């Protein structure tokens, strides 16, 4: 009642004001609600987009490029963030002053920096992948328009060790050479784009419900390479290079059993940390000559020729061949030996490295058979190693072989092989005749360093019989013994088996063999009895000396001497190299010595009077001076008459005479 009376007492002005106020408030609320409706409903997406544009910022969570390890888990290649400097051209206040400051810090000419700063481009790279010190000094400048961002630089902590195998990446992180290139897809990290809020001061804040993703590393690669053996190989090759000043040189070290490449290097070496910004197209940066360049293997190829001949039963180790005193005409071409020899056993052909003997055996074998074995040993085709730029070598199609091609291929001319092919083929002999592809990558690893995929291939095929391999191995042992072409190849306490090669080099201009350019090669395995390592040393165009036994064999010895104890293969005792393993002739074979000591011309009459014409002996120039396969073996009989003119019986084992 009281309230009603009070209300009545209010005047009409109050009521009109109150009504007006209510209307205003209601209208205001309506306006607010209307505006809110417009913003929240009608223009919702527009304003959300705008808000996202203003507040949200996209950044990428880095994914580091995968690490490359050696077989012992040593880091060979690793990505580390480095700061890069860029500029917003239009925001630079004083380009001249900024360029002067940057020039002092970056140690670059002022003019080039100023040119960049005054460029019309909006975004300009000033310098990428700065050092930490440079980045700190640039931060202190606080120059408007200059900004730093993180990029990822590839570091190779072992520098040149394994540089050609590991390869390198370009400034954008793409693999250019080596494993970096062949495993680029595996190693390359994929950065994850993430949205994040950013306030008005460009400070980031994380408002997402999930935790921010952590930077991850992509898959890594573990190589079969051993950094220590690689270093030993490089340091020994460097010493040889200093001594003989060659054009280039290569070393391949391989595990006989697994065909894992333990070292693969070419001199001059290559440090992947030192990539020039502008690559000279003529410069072969990081090129691995041991897999990408072919050379004529010279006498080292005789072991494959001998393997093929022995495996087919065309010759036996104790069989003898006449080597024409060191010079003869074959297939219309003159073939020479460094030292003249008369009659040599097959073992001696390898031991003394007789070109004439090798050519004769090759001619006896025939191109079809020989070519098949050459391909079976892996020559003329890619080994399939996981490295880019492999060359398959140069093997002429068998149908195009002329007689002279067949003859000279017997001692490693007219054929081109890579260092890796040669090493792998020697591993066939060392392992008992089985071919297996060479391996450089052991497995792929996850970011925790655990193996996720094995790369090794267990595919093998038999090339020669175990017996043949043992026979050739015994012959190769003779090479490193006293009287062989590489008596200094065995390190103290070990017995090595190998073969030297001194191949003439074809002159690119004259297309003839240069008289003063050679490729010195030594390839072999060690220990000879239970081979652990195959080592091939190739020195191209050495100065001072050219013989494989002088230039390359010592490198083999030094590498083996350091690598074998490291691998747990201890020396078996002092190096007691036995003398040449030549059987002593009995009284009847003494006449052979007289005959073999004569020149071919004087031996010719012996053929005419030879009993049963069982031996075929022809003078110089005749092709081939080898026995036919179906020729009867001279039968052992009573002692011949002392005339000695046709007594060509060699020894009690009934060896054949060619």
């Amino acid at each position, binding site marked *: 009642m*009281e*309230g009603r009376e009070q209300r009545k007492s209010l005047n009409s002005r109050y009521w009109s004001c109150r009504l007006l106020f209510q209307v205003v408030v209601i209208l205001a609320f309506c306006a607010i609600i209307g505006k809110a409706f417009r913003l929240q409903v009608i223009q919702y997406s527009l304003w959300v987009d705008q808000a996202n544009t203003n507040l949200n910022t996209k950044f990428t969570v880095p994914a*580091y490029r995968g690490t490359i390890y050696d077989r012992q888990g*040593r*880091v060979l290649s*690793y*990505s*580390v*963030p480095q700061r890069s400097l860029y500029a917003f051209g239009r925001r630079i206040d004083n380009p001249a002053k900024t360029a002067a400051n940057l020039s002092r810090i970056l140690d670059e000419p002022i003019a080039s920096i100023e040119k960049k700063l005054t460029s019309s481009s909006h975004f300009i790279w000033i310098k990428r992948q700065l050092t930490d010190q440079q980045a700190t000094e640039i931060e202190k400048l606080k120059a408007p328009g200059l900004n730093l961002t*993180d990029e990822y630089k590839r*570091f190779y*902590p*072992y*520098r*040149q*060790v394994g540089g050609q195998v590991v390869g390198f990446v370009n400034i954008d992180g793409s693999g250019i050479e080596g494993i970096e290139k062949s495993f680029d897809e595996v190693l390359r990290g994929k950065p994850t784009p993430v949205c*994040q*809020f950013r306030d008005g001061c460009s*400070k*980031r*804040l*994380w*408002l997402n419900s999930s935790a*921010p993703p*952590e*930077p991850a590393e992509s898959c890594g690669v573990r190589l079969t390479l051993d*950094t*220590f053996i690689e*270093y030993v190989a490089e*340091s020994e090759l460097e010493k040889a290079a200093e001594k003989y000043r060659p054009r280039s040189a290569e070393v391949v070290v391989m595990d006989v059993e697994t065909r894992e490449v333990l070292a693969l290097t070419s001199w001059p070496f290559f440090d992947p940390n030192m990539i020039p910004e502008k690559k000279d197209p003529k410069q072969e940066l990081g090129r691995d000559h041991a897999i990408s360049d072919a050379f004529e293997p010279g006498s080292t190829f005789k072991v494959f020729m001998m393997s093929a001949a022995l495996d087919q039963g065309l010759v036996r180790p104790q069989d003898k061949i006449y080597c024409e005193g060191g010079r003869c005409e074959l297939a219309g071409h003159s073939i020479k030996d460094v030292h003249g020899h008369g009659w040599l056993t097959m073992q001696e052909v390898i031991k003394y490295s007789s070109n004439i003997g090798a050519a004769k055996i090759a001619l006896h074998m025939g191109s079809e058979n020989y070519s098949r074995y050459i391909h079976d040993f892996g020559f003329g085709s890619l080994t399939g190693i996981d490295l880019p730029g492999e060359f398959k070598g140069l093997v002429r199609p068998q149908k195009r072989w002329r007689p002279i091609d067949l003859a000279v291929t017997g001692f490693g001319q007219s054929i081109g092989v890579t260092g890796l092919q040669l090493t792998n083929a020697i591993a066939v002999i060392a392992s008992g005749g089985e071919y297996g592809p060479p391996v450089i990558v052991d497995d792929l690893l996850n970011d925790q360093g655990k193996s996720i995929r094995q790369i090794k291939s267990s595919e093998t095929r038999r090339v020669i019989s175990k017996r043949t391999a043992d026979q050739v191995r015994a012959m190769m042992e003779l090479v490193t013994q006293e009287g062989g072409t590489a008596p200094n190849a065995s390190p*103290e*306490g070990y017995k090595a088996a190998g073969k030297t090669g001194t191949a003439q080099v074809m002159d690119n201009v004259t297309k003839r063999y240069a008289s003063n350019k050679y490729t010195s090669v030594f390839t072999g395995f060690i220990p000879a009895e239970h081979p652990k390592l195959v080592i091939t040393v190739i020195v191209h165009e050495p100065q001072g000396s050219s013989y494989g036994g002088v230039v390359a064999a010592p490198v083999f010895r030094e590498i083996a001497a350091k690598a074998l*104890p490291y691998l747990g293969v*201890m*020396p078996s005792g002092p190096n007691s190299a036995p003398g040449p393993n030549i059987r002593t002739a009995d009284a009847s074979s003494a006449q052979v010595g007289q005959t073999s000591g004569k020149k071919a011309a004087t031996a010719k009459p012996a053929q005419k009077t030879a009993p049963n014409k069982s031996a075929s002996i022809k003078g110089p120039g005749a092709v081939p001076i080898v026995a036919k396969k179906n020729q009867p073996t001279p039968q052992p009989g009573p002692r011949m008459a002392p005339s000695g003119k046709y007594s060509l019986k060699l020894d009690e084992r009934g060896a054949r005479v060619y």
Partner: protein
Amino acid sequence: MRRAKESAPIFSIKLEGDPGFQQKTPAHTRIWAWLTSAILLGAVFVICAVFYVWLYVQQIQNGYRLSKAYEESELLSNVQRKLTIEWSRFRDPQRLEEIGRNQFGLAPPRADQKVVMR
């Protein structure tokens, strides 16, 4: 007794003639009651609003903290990667050989200094 309790209405209105009927509460009391309720409601609303704002501020602050922690972890990860490289460089056989030769005067052992452990 139980039946009487069960048949009793749940709600009952007391009429004016009913002896239990009480006189209507005075207006000022009701205003105070209303005001008290309004103040309480307002207080609850304000507390909720403050709590909401506090939560939001906390969210923002935590967002900054998370972002900062993330940047720090990234920085530490970078440092760790640089240290890994440094460590690897220390193990470089070439460098070790240089240090051995130049700083400590080491040299490869002679043949008579080698002892093969079998």
